[in-house]
């Protein structure tokens, strides 16, 4: 089974040379640490930056340089700054190649619920709805089950939706799944030490398993 770093590490393998990538808050942010040095990748921050770099050294924090999670960061050589309208314009116009975000629930047909728990957590959707409505490549990084042990890969989302028919791939601590256009979660890889049986037990939605499922190599 993978921990959060493991999930991030596996997702980083999906990033291709020359990609512009948007990383959501939480586990997705960790993906930045595992992007291979041999490839060129530019990270887009929805608050108006391309070329997001690592956290600054202590003492070098700049209040005017933050990421979408409101953390202090740095800018890499070749960075560009733009306003919020342009930021979401480039997202909507599909210039961003890959979006990685967390979720509370994903359904068999790729619906995603990630922003609201009615009566309990109503903080707002931020940029998530824009990202999932426009991106062609969406990978969800999340735990396979919630705190109550219930599957987060469902036939249908029960929580308020962020978007419909949009998630393409999911990486959880148990494995890697494709969301098929015709519906269903296709198991691609098992996490180290995890069996197909474990995954079946934890998944409420339709699971498609074809042939021998390899163990993840990270």
């Amino acid at each position: 089974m993978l921990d959060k770093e493991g999930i991030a590490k596996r997702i980083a393998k999906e990033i291709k040379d020359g990609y512009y990538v948007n990383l959501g808050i939480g586990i997705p942010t960790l993906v930045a640490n595992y992007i291979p040095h041999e490839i060129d990748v530019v990270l887009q921050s929805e608050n108006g930056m391309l070329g997001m770099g690592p956290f600054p050294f202590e003492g070098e924090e700049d209040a005017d340089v933050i990421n979408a999670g409101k953390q202090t960061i740095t800018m890499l050589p070749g960075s560009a700054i733009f306003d919020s309208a342009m930021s979401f314009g480039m997202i909507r116009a599909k210039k961003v190649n890959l979006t990685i975000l967390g979720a509370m629930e994903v359904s068999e047909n790729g619906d995603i619920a990630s922003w609201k728990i009615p009566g309990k957590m109503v903080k707002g959707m931020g940029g998530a709805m824009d990202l999932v409505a426009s991106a062609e490549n969406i990978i969800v990084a999340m735990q396979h089950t919630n705190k109550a042990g219930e599957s987060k890969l469902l036939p249908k989302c029960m929580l308020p939706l962020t978007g419909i028919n949009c998630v393409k791939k999911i990486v959880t601590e148990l494995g890697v799944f494709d969301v098929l256009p015709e519906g269903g979660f296709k198991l691609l890889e098992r996490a180290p030490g995890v069996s197909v049986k474990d995954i079946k037990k934890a998944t409420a939605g339709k699971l498609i398993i074809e042939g021998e499922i390899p163990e993840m190599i990270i």
Partner: protein
Amino acid sequence: MNKVVNNADEAINDIKDGMTLMLGGFGLCGLPENCIAALVKKGVKELTCISNNAGVDDFGIGLMLKQRQVKKMISSYVGENAEFERQLLSGELEVELVPQGTLATRCMAAGYGMPAIFTPAGIGTEVAIGKEIRNFNGKDYLMEMAFDADFAIVKAWKGDSMGNLVYRATARNFNAVMAMAGKITIAEVEELVKPGELDPDHIHTPGIYVHRIFQGKNYEKRIEQRTVRKRI
């Protein structure tokens, strides 16, 4: 042409109860701190505030919420303000949660003289309720209206007396879009300069959009999450 006023109090002197204000900033970054303090001091209330976030409890729009000056917030994310969440869940405060891109683009539409925009953000979600949906090239889009704000209050890094503005790094965010969109735009700047000192090629907001500008002071520029890495 001289749009300079002396301070925030002067700049906001004709803002009245019940008005709709746009306020720039993303989180605590690029906040028009002087104008917010002046609004709190003035005590204007029943305001509708269009701003991406609601600050934290003791900074940004949180200061206005504490004084119950806000009737309605139009934002994309209001997570870091406990008072806000309390007022929301209790029904004291009206809230319209708008996807961040839609928020920015509705401001842009106002600034570009377009009555409405079409966006796929929110299709299939509760954001789509009651809105017109149109299909273009096989994809559904929501029709969203341009905002109509009495005032846009923005923070810039430098500005000149003709209202030309330059922003710094990610403090630009919504400030640049909102500056175009208010019926009256008020800009507070860290450094007010003479016309000619800003390179025309590097102006982010042309002065035509700005009605009042003043030299701001005592910026706290609070950092919401100070994250650092160790030197090896």
